[in-house]
């Protein structure tokens, strides 16, 4: 049986192991104590001068001090540069960056000072409770309700006037809400300032004549007299494009609308009213820069791509005996995006 039992330790061996284990336990306890000393929040009062909580966090405080002083010196230089840049009226980005770098370096230095050179802590200070006890609170509430109520009740007239004033203010406050909706548009959405015989003028007010535009040219025109008005620039703006030298028919029923190859379309996109200003003369497309609606100039501006729901309205033109380009009438439908009351498709 004896050879089956585990090997017996000699008394000498057992003593050695016990010694090692005691030593290990002692070291672990020390380490735990150190950890507790340095990481457990302590109250700052009553600490011994050599308490680890009061040591700086940095391992090499002198190196950190050197780095911080370099930060501060560079910061002072940057601030001096900021002053100089300000005096000589340098470029804004130089003024801004010298000041920014200076403040940044001061900030880095201060934060590093606080983080690495101050006592590492963490410290706690217990605060007394802020709330008063129940008796105090009850007494206070009772004083307000009873005395205050008494005072208000004694001034019934004033309280009534105050209440009435607040009530009227509440009603008046509703007015701006209704007023700020603005005047009703009435018929203005349905008509532009183009009339029978309106001269087409460019943005400088010069009348456009038949010989001026070459094929592939585009100009934004207004009915004469509106080129400098808000309404003219918003509603009446029209693109005049020359697409050939011959009379141009974009659609059945518009045989006379495009004399000598001049065709005119409203510049307001039928989607959201952006100015449809991109004319691609090879593709014969008008493109809206906002949402890339594309209108084919040659077939009555039917949208062939994008969110626009309707063709751009075409302005019927004629050329008078002196060669000026004029409109036959207003647009035959409302220009721009759709609205509730709009009836024409």
């Amino acid at each position, binding site marked *: 049986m004896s050879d089956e039992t585990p090997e017996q330790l000699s008394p000498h061996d057992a003593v050695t192991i016990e010694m090692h284990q005691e030593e290990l336990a002692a070291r672990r306890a020390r380490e735990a104590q150190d950890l507790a000393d340095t990481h457990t929040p302590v109250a700052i009062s009553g600490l011994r001068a050599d308490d680890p909580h009061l040591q700086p966090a940095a391992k090499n405080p002198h190196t950190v001090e050197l780095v911080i002083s370099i930060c501060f010196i560079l910061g002072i230089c940057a601030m001096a540069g900021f002053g100089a840049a300000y005096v000589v009226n340098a*470029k804004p*980005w130089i003024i801004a960056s010298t000041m920014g770098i200076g403040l940044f370096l001061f900030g880095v230095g201060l934060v590093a000072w606080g983080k690495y050179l101050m006592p590492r802590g963490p410290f706690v200070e217990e605060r007394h409770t802020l709330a008063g006890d129940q008796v105090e609170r009850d007494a206070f509430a009772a004083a307000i309700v009873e005395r205050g109520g008494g005072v208000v009740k004694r001034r019934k007239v004033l309280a009534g006037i105050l209440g009435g004033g607040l009530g009227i203010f509440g009603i008046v406050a509703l007015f701006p809400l209704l007023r700020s909706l603005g005047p009703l548009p009435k018929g203005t959405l349905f008509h532009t300032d183009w009339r029978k015989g309106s001269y087409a003028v460019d943005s400088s007010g010069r009348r456009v004549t038949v010989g001026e*535009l070459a094929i592939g*040219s585009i100009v934004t025109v207004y009915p004469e007299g509106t080129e400098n008005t808000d309404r003219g620039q918003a509603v009446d703006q029209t693109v005049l494009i020359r697409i050939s030298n011959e009379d141009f028919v974009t659609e059945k029923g518009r045989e006379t609308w495009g004399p000598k190859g001049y065709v005119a379309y409203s510049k307001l996109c039928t989607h959201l009213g952006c100015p449809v200003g991109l004319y*691609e003369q090879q*593709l014969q497309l008008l493109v809206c820069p906002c949402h890339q609606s594309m209108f084919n100039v040659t077939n009555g501006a039917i949208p062939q791509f994008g969110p626009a729901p309707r063709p751009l309205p075409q302005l019927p033109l004629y050329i008078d005996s002196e060669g000026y380009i004029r409109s036959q009438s207003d647009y035959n439908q409302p220009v721009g995006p759709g609205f509730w009351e709009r009836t024409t498709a």
Partner: protein
Amino acid sequence: MTYSFIRRSALGLGAGLFVVAPLVLFAAPANAGNYKTIPFQTTRKNAGTPNSSDVTKNAKGQVTKYGNKYITYTIPSSSLDKLGQALFMENCASCHGSQANGVPTSAVGSYPDLVGLGPATIDFWIDSGRMPAKDPEAVEALRRQPALNPHQAQAIAAWVDSLSPSYPGIPTPHLKNANVSEGQQLFALNCAACHTIEGDGDALAYSTFAPSLRHIPAFQVVEAIRTGPANMPRFTGNLSDQQVDDIVKYVTTEIQHPNNPGGFGLGGLGPVAEGFIALLVGVGFLALICYWIGDRS
């Protein structure tokens, strides 16, 4: 008697028609030929064609120079014709034909007829490096380092122009007479829709785009405005030489040398791009600093 007279007259008329009618086939191309000279014509004075007050002609009565105090247009000298023809045969004829009259294809704008387009057109396409084309089937020719120097470009323009003299000539804008404020307004109205108000260019239909204007010499800006390369509209009678000069001044100053108070223009891409940079760089940097401040040492 009368019957046979009528019959004979009718026969004669028919025969006559039979002989004369084919001439219509010749008449039609003749009209088409006239069409070539029409594109840049404008009756407006001082708008790119020599109907302005100041026109210089040579001994043969050919226009050599015209314009005004805003832009001078020069027709390249006919002494360059020989050189131009040689260069054309070497660099251009394989697509545009030995007579510069193009090769008709189904696609719009491919291998176009160059006769009658005016020296400014030819000069622009060669001098901006778009021609000779790197990829003749590309939907849009891109600005590249020019394969031919300005002198060679003018020589080719001179030879093509000699086939059918036309306008506009090669422009020289006089920017000291220009008004940059007017130019800004005209740019906003006429150019910004495609090129954007910052002049960076933007996408158009069918894979084409309006190019950036950041690195374009002043005379090429005039050439592009006056001749309407590719999908760009032609600005002829709709802009006077004075107005074009104003626009060129705006492009070559405010657009090509923008005044960026912040030091970085960020390509003028607007508040979205700037906000993105502020969020990514600014807030990201601040977050890192906050992490450093709050981290236990």
